[in-house]
């Protein structure tokens, strides 16, 4: 068991997502940054499907009520084990009553805390990913108890980190493909959307990221059709919205671009006022 001592701004449990229920209008959810989450599970030899804790903007604290192994990947929130700084991307042995805390941000927006053999919270519609009105909780609160399995941890920490390339967390360019309605854009907008730099507005969440700079939109609305995480919608007011993991399954705004899976991971590590640029490939 893990006890939440501080929940931070937004801390949730996520796995790869809820598949097979889109026909009932259920969002896929799941980890925002697959790359970081997969690395955390891999370091512990977990299956990639195992659920982890997704921490947004740091300032969370957890007490382990049993021994286990953990790994922290993604954003660097200067994590500490019993008030001693610990590295990211490393297998860390945890003894009963150890406290892991996350503080201020060095880089990134979302960190992943994986535990040996995964978080064992409730499964609803075949997934443990938190989502309002689907799971009983949609964010962790102070005092919550998170079920995990005991794993005897007799080794001592050597803190040998896996070397990873952090470029994807910092890079502005998001690789994307033409969306189904891209060709309806005016020639001017086709060029503008690829050349212009956009800033992320304060309205950014697991559901989607609104961008500050509107285009001069002339495309009509479409008959409601599927949208996916990574779909870039053009609203009637010209504002672009990039949908993320908690997005709805269908929408009526034209889908002008579609982010690559890698670009979704990059965007997941960005927030308000960060700059992005679309890098369109065919």
């Amino acid at each position: 068991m893990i006890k939440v001592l501080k929940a931070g701004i937004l801390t949730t449990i996520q796995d790869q997502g809820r598949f097979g229920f889109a026909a009932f209008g259920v969002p896929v959810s799941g980890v925002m940054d697959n790359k970081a989450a997969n690395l955390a599970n891999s370091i512990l030899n977990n299956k990639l499907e195992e659920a982890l804790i997704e921490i947004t903007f740091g300032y969370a604290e957890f007490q382990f009520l049993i021994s286990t192994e953990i790994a922290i990947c993604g954003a660097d929130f200067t994590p500490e084990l019993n008030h001693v700084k610990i590295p990211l991307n490393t297998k860390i042995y945890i003894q009963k009553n150890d406290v892991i805390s996350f503080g201020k941000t060095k880089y990134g927006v979302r960190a992943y805390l994986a535990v040996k053999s995964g978080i064992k919270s409730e499964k609803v519609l075949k997934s443990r990913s938190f989502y309002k009105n689907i799971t009983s909780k949609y964010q962790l609160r102070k005092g919550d108890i998170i079920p995990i399995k005991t794993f005897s941890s007799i080794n001592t920490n050597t803190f040998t980190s896996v070397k990873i390339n952090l470029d994807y967390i910092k890079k502005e360019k998001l690789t994307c493909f033409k969306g189904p309605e891209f060709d309806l854009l005016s020639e001017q907008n086709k060029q503008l959307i690829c050349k212009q730099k956009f800033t992320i507005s304060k309205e950014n969440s697991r559901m989607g990221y609104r961008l500050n700079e509107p285009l001069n939109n002339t495309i009509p609305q479409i008959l409601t059709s599927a949208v996916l995480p990574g779909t870039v919608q053009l609203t009637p007011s010209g504002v672009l919205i990039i949908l993320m993991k908690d997005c709805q399954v269908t929408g009526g705004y034209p889908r002008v671009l579609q982010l690559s899976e890698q670009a979704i991971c990059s965007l997941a590590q960005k927030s308000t006022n960060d700059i992005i640029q679309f890098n369109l490939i065919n």
Partner: protein
Amino acid sequence: MKLSKQPSYKSFGEKAILVEWEAIISQENLTKILSFKDQVSKQITGISELIIGYNSLTILYKNVIEDLSNEIDNLKEIYESLTNNKTTKKCTWEIPVCYDKEFGIDLEFIAKRNNLSISTIIELHARSLYTVFFIGFLPGFPYLSGLDEALYVDRKAAPELNIKKGAVAIGGKQTGIYTTNSPGGWHVIGNSPLKFFDASKESPCFINAGDQIKFIAISKEEHQAILLEIESGNFKPKTIVND
């Protein structure tokens, strides 16, 4: 009977193919989409989701699509061999809606914009028999065809931040029900007390694509009474089974 000409096939990111029919809301499109979806799910492996739209089917694969044109050829072949056999039974559901101004916060806007009285809006909305095209946008949100043309009204330019659970609304040429509290860009005309989505059930929606819906106008008192019945577990949505 053979289905008519092929729809269009487009790549939609690395993992999905978007199949589109003529951009109209029609029973003909729905029948084609449902039978195609049925066969694709039976014949193609490695599919993660099949998402229906009014004139589209999005096929989301578990993995990145390596050979797009080969995959599209497979789909085309399945479409070629489809036949128009209607087999599954569809239901008609009676959905109670309270159109009181307390719930129908955008009735006045539509009345002005479309030059109709509020009572005419309610009468037109409750008169039609609607077909459920698909569930989307929110868990359990049914997309319906059959809205009277006089009630067409463009979606809001910027979405409202909090539309209440049960809100019955109009967006463009469509009408639907907000099944949970949610942001949304449609104009709200009333509220239904029913529970349209239950995550504890393996099949979480009682309404399915292809079913039909009839809205029944109810008073505020009846709305409250049904809410209480649902809370106590004594309410079952009413249906008429179609042929």
